[in-house]
Structures are given as C-alpha cells and as structure tokens.
C-alpha cells in the first residue's frame, strides 16, 4: 500500500544541508496499523507529510497504492492525495467557518462529487463516528474529542486507501483520547490501513507494528508489547 525505499529529504540553505530523512525505507501493507515513533525532531512528521504527498522528497522511491509519485505534477499529486489519503491531525484542523457537514464535505467537493453523493458519504462517515446529530454544529460548539471525531469522519468520508494520523490524541485529555484511539482501532478492525505518528508509547502499543525513527532513519522494527505479549501467549 505504502512503499518507501531509500528515501531521503534534505533541507538546504546556502551554508548547510540538513537531512530530515536519510535512506528511509518502509513498507505498509493493506489493512495494517503501523505506529511511527521517535523523539522530537527525528523526522516523524516529515515522513508523514511526504507519505501524504504534501511535501516532495529529495531522492529515493515512493509508491502509494502502486503509483510512483516521483515527478507527478501538483494537480496529479493533489488528485492522488484526495482519493487515496485521509489525514487526521493533532490539532483537528477543522475549518471554523464551516459546520460539521461542510467540513466533512471539503475533500468530496474537490473530488467533484454530486450533492446527493456527498450527503450520503457525510451521513455514513458521521454514523461511523457517532456524531450524526451534530451535522449542523460548528467546530466551536464541539468538545475536543468530538472535533477529532469530526476530523476522522472527514478523513473517512472519501473512503481513502490509507489513513495518516499525526498525534491524533495529542490535544485531548485522557478520557477523550481513549475514545478516539478506540475509534481508530475500530476502523482498523474494519479493514482500514492506518499509519499513526506518535511519541506516546501507550498509544504506539495499540498499533500492530511500531516503526522507530531516529535522526531521519528507521532504526528498529519493534513489535508493540501488547502484540508481543499476545504472540508469546500463543506460543
């Protein structure tokens, strides 16, 4: 689903070159739930923005759902991003001027869906996150947990091939965070491919697989304790 091979991202100024990612390789299979962890500045978010086609990489190879994204123009990258990727941000990033329904419609608008089709997709997505009754509410009228659920509904509405989540519980208290992570797990059980960037070990253990990034490189593939414990019990 998401294959990166020998990827590097270099930020250049006149005097210095900084490697945000260096020889970064990663393969996420369809239906996998992967946590990408690492300390601050390790390159987690750069990985996510490159994976989400929001940023170009300097060298290496990246295939998204079989499509080689290198050299695609902005229009095709945007189209691919719209169709294949759903973003869940730490800060929710809902548009304050739009109500819940309109927020969820945004990616569908750019896909050129008809009004009826959009309404059906929005309805289904809101059903999945349990916020059908809040369609006309504005983000400011919702709690943090509810806003993140709306953001998840927005990510889901276009039925993307992969969900990219950046610290999805980072701005939530523990109670709300639990609800959101349970929702993400539920989506995964439903077959969604999820890549989640986090520096929270407790969150990382909920994933099937953890990829640890340090200084822009994948340093370790670690089986999360819960999964490792499960494997031990089975053996």
């Amino acid at each position: 689903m998401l294959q990166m091979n020998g990827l590097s991202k270099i930020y250049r100024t006149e005097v210095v070159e900084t490697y945000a990612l260096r020889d970064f390789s990663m393969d996420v299979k369809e239906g996998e739930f992967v946590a990408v962890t690492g300390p601050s500045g390790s390159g987690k978010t750069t990985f996510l923005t490159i994976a989400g086609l929001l940023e170009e990489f300097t060298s290496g190879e990246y295939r998204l759902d079989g499509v080689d994204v290198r050299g695609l123009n902005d229009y095709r990258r945007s189209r691919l991003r719209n169709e294949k990727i759903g973003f869940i941000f730490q800060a929710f990033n809902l548009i304050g001027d739009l109500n819940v329904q309109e927020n969820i419609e945004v990616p569908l608008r750019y896909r050129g869906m008809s009004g009826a089709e959009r309404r059906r997709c929005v309805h289904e997505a809101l059903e999945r996150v349990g916020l059908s009754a809040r369609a006309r509410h504005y983000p400011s009228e919702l709690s943090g947990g509810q806003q993140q659920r709306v953001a998840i509904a927005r990510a889901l509405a276009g039925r993307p091939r992969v969900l990219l989540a950046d610290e999805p519980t980072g701005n939530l208290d523990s109670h709300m965070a639990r609800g959101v992570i349970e929702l993400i797990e539920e989506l995964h059980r439903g077959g969604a491919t999820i890549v989640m960037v986090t520096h929270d070990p407790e969150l990382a253990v909920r994933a099937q697989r953890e990829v640890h990034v340090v200084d822009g490189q994948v340093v370790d593939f670690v089986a999360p304790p819960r999964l490792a414990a499960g494997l031990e019990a089975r053996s």
Partner: protein
Amino acid sequence: MFGYYTTLAVRGLRSQAALTLLIIVAVGVGIGASMTTLTIYRGMAADPIPEKSLRLFTPQIDNFGPSGSKGPAGRDGLQDRLTYTDTIALLRAHAAFRQAAMYATQRVLMPGDPTLRPFDTSVRATSGDFFAMFDVPFLYGVGWTSQDDADHAQVAVISRDLNDRLFGGMNSVGRSLTLDGREYRVVGVMDRWQPLPRFYDLDRAFDMPEDVFLPFNVAIERKMEFGNINCRKAVGGFDDILSGECVWAHFWVELPTAAAVAQYRRFLANYATEQQRSGRFQWAARTRLRNVQEWLAYHHVVSNEVSMLVAVSFSFLFVCLLNAAGLLLAKLIGRAPEISVRRALGASRRAIFAQCLLEAGLVGLLGGLVGLLLTSMGINGLRSLVSDEGRALLHLDAVDVGIAVALGVLATLVAGIYPTWRTARLQPARQLKTL
C-alpha cells in the same frame, strides 16, 4: 466548483471583516477618484454629433500666409475662421450638400410683455441649412428656408428656454420677437439641444447653444458685430471688416459621401488657387477640410490639464491598488492554515488560486460599487460648483457605471494575482507542522 468557490468567497469576506472592509475602501476610493475625472474627460471628449461627425466638415483657408498671424488654432498657420469675402464666395458656390455660414453675437431683446425688462441675449447668425445639417430638434415649427436666406427674411428660431421665458412655453410660431428694436417673426422653437462640445463654435465649447438664431444675411445687413475677429491689418468699422482680410465667420458643410468630400477638397483648393492668381494671396494656396472629430482634436478640446488630471487620478488608483494588494496578501496569508488544510484534503494549487482570485474579484466588485457611490458623490459635488453648462458634462450614465464596476473587478483581480499566487504556493506541510 464555481458555485462552491463563490460561496467560499462570500464567507471569506465575512472572515477578517475589518481587513476586507479596508480593501474595499482602498479600491473604492481609487475607483471613485479615477472615475470622477474620467467622467469629466469622457464628457469633454465625447462625440457631440456621433451620427454625423464624419459627414460634417469645416473648411480652412490660409488667409494670412507665412508671415501673418497664426490665429487661435495656429498650429499649422491656418485660421479657424473665414473672411467675409471667402464666406460669401463659398455660400454662393454652393458646392456642398448643405452649408452654413455663422457667427455669434449678443443683442438686446425687448420682451413683448411690458412687465419684463429688456435683456441681453445670445444670437447666432447663420444659414437656413444649419438646422437640418446639425439635426436640430424642433418643439414647434421649423428652421427658415434657403429662400428666406436669399430674401433676407426677418425670421428667427428661438430656444426652448427663451420660448418659456417670453411665451410661457406656448407655441410661439408666427409671434414676433424684438431685437435691437427690430421685429423678427418666430418660425421655429428648438427643443432641448446641447451638443457637447459645441463643435460648430469652439470659442466657448461647453456653453449652451444660443437663444436666438437669425439669418446670416440679415445679421450682416443689420451690422450685428462679431465676437472674435482676427485681421491681417488694423481696420476701422464694420464695413472695413467685411471688405478686409479679417477672419471671423465659421463655415460648415455637410458632405454625405467620400466622393463629395474629395470633390469639395478640390473645389476649395481651386478656390484658394484662384485667389492666389488674382493676387489676393501672396503665398502658396493652402486649404484644409476637417470633419468634426478632426476639428475637436485640432483644437485640443480636451485640455492637457484635464488629461493630466485623469493621469494623476489613475496613478492614485494604482497606489490604492498597491495598498489593496498588500492588504489582500495579509488577508490571504492570514488564511494560510485553512488553505493548508484544503491542500491536505486534495485541493490543487490551481483550485486554491481560483478560489482566492474569485474572492479578490468579489472584493473588487464591492470596491467598484463603493467607487461608483464615491464617483456619484464626486460628480454631484462638482455639479454644485460649476455653471449650468458645465453640469451637462458631469453626469453618470450606464457606460460609466459599467466602467466603474468593471474597473473595480479587473483592477482588483490584477492586484490580487500576486497575493493569490503566493497563497496558492504556500507549503501546506510547513503550515500543518506548526498547527
């Protein structure tokens, strides 16, 4: 997507409302200033008789030669009026489809109503063809005939205003008018007619037409003096002016076809050559035949000052638009988080560019409307400062409205291109990392 972008543009106006208002005011003030001067310019530069301006011509003859006075027009050494000798010769030759000699004078009018005091009134002495040639509209009656010209008939055509003043607006055809103690029979009352600029006599280009029109021959017979005279040599009285080389009469002809124009040019050149041969002109014969549009350009009816004023006001509009561009940039950069989210959700740069440009266009439309309001206020303000004649120049018509609105939209779109381009080029990754 146009409908969606329009909805977003309307919402965009409401967000950062203060900034939006500043942009609208900046555009509006620029449009208001430039449109006010442009309206004046358009009024002055308008074609006063569009349906005929290419068929009406005025001849010029070099009466003074290279050493003589350059006259009021002066740029090519030709006088813009004719001598009496030439005027009569051209009238008698009758080489044009229609022709009219004319000059302006001022006479004392004695109202028939004894309760009214005598007053000075503006008079134009001219030929009967004047009215048909210049498509003068009549409220009552008609102009006099060529036969009346030949017969030196004591007839007059009066303006609607004078008819209102003397006869209470009633049909005065057949009634008498007393000028300088002599009676003239009213044969026609003109309806409202104000060609601007008053092309047939540009001495007072933006004045109303005269109140009384009399036959040219009659005015000469009565020795009604002329307004503007230019003589090669100093002369004495009225008769000396008629017989001397003094230019004072305007002359207009109507030439309906290109062949007629060519023929009249030849006639005019031949006439001047004859004058040279006869010894009247001691220099190479020179003539010109200019139509209305060429005549207005020749006389620089739109003064350089007005053109400069328009240029200055459009420079001011440019400064306003630079400000608007800066404000628009600030407004759009302020929306960077939203735009980054849209990019993340699949909006291409092209889509963001279109959305932002539409918003700029909408701001421009509102700026244009504000500009229109300010133009209207400016025009009304100026109208209160100028004479009745000047007021006719100062009005907003549908074309002005269209120009103001289109200028607002276009100018803001141009001003909005850079901010919009910058916004569309925002790096969503960088923005989203900081959110």
